[in-house]
């Protein structure tokens, strides 16, 4: 009897720990992107290729910083193709404005001052939007991470390096998934 109670207690304890460590769900939206809907051209390589605006809510109290990753798992590659890595977004931010500068010397918008960008699959520390091969719609996951610490993160991290660096500090997570497809084009002269 006593043993059974102990076992049950341990199970409850582990369950409570698991709940405590699971990231809280964030709600991620955008004034211009809609879940499951085609991404407007200006956020793609067929347009101006500027970064889209994002908004989020539901971050838990311990949140000190945010990070955002955009990737595409539909590429014919072992890992999703990374389009954007941005982090050290202040914990007070409610989102990212449109058109984050591509010039590393340019100042970040005031609401996200201090944010830095990491290295994408295009080997650039900037947003580069969808440019998929024609054939099918690709899904673009804009994932937002709430982080409970101000970590010493250098600019230029890859997605893998960033995820490793924030491991154990993610207290909230959410995503917005939109799509984009290129149609086969006629041969130009």
């Amino acid at each position, binding site marked *: 009897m006593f043993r059974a109670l102990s076992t049950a207690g341990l199970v409850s304890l582990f369950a409570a720990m698991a709940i405590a460590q699971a990231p809280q769900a964030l709600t991620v939206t955008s004034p211009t992107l809609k879940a499951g809907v085609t991404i407007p051209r200006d956020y793609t*390589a*067929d*347009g*101006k*290729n*500027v970064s889209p605006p994002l908004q989020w809510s539901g971050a838990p109290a311990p949140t000190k910083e945010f990070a955002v990753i955009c990737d595409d798992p539909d590429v014919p590659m072992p890992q999703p193709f990374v389009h954007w890595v941005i982090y050290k977004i202040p914990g007070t931010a409610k989102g990212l404005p449109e058109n984050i500068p*591509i*010039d*590393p*010397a*340019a100042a970040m918008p005031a609401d996200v001052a201090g944010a830095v960008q990491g290295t994408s699959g*295009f*080997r*650039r*520390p*900037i947003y*580069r939007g969808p*440019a*998929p*091969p*024609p054939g099918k719609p690709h899904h673009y996951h804009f994932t937002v991470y709430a982080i409970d610490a101000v970590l010493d993160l250098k600019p230029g991290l890859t997605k893998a390096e960033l995820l490793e660096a924030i491991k154990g500090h993610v207290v909230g997570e959410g995503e917005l998934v939109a799509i984009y497809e*290129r149609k086969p*084009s*006629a*041969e*130009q*002269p």
Partner: protein
Amino acid sequence: MISRRALLKAAGAVAAGAAGAEVTRAEGIADTPAPASAAADRPAHDHDQASPREPLEALTAEEAALLTAIVARLIPADLNGPGAVEAGAVAYIDRALAGSLASSREAYRRGLAAVERYARSSRGGSFRELTPVDQDSLLIDVETGAATGSGAGFDGSSAAFFALVRAHTWQGTFGDPHYGGNREYIGWNLVGYPGVRTAVTADDQRLGVVPAPLRRSAYDTDMFTKATARLDPRDPHHGDPA
């Protein structure tokens, strides 16, 4: 679009051995600093006056103007001094396309036309009329291959055309002036290349001594004659990275 610091780092190795125009393609390209000045907000076609002064030999006037606008972003004139346009990189490329790089002429015709089509379809205007920031953004898409499937008509990957233009721009900026670029030794001055030397004195080799730069073509020395230059257009090896 190339940061000056990274450019110098990459080009230093190139210039160190560049007696001729056979500049090898360096690894990688720097990141994307667009100008953070007010100039970033206005169209960037102020380089028209710096177009080749000699009659064009291979490119059309339209192609030369577009190419001038492109190389102006690859190695821009800035606070560190003149850039590729001022160095005559376009004149070098034009002259080479009529001679030793003739095998690349068609690639330029198709590639430049594709860049212009891509500018109009993606950014809504001619490349020359875009702001420097938009020009840089567009060139990044060309460089990374993101422009390939845009319907602009690049042959294969847009990245191949970018690599071709980049390699030739570097040749025209940092190569020997004998080939028509590197005017007034702009490229050599930019990277601090001491110049072609056939002799190095003991004084030159002392620690801490910075030799006075020699500014003359390698072909002006007796032991390096023009006869050694391979100018046969049928020779595909002469500086052509394709």
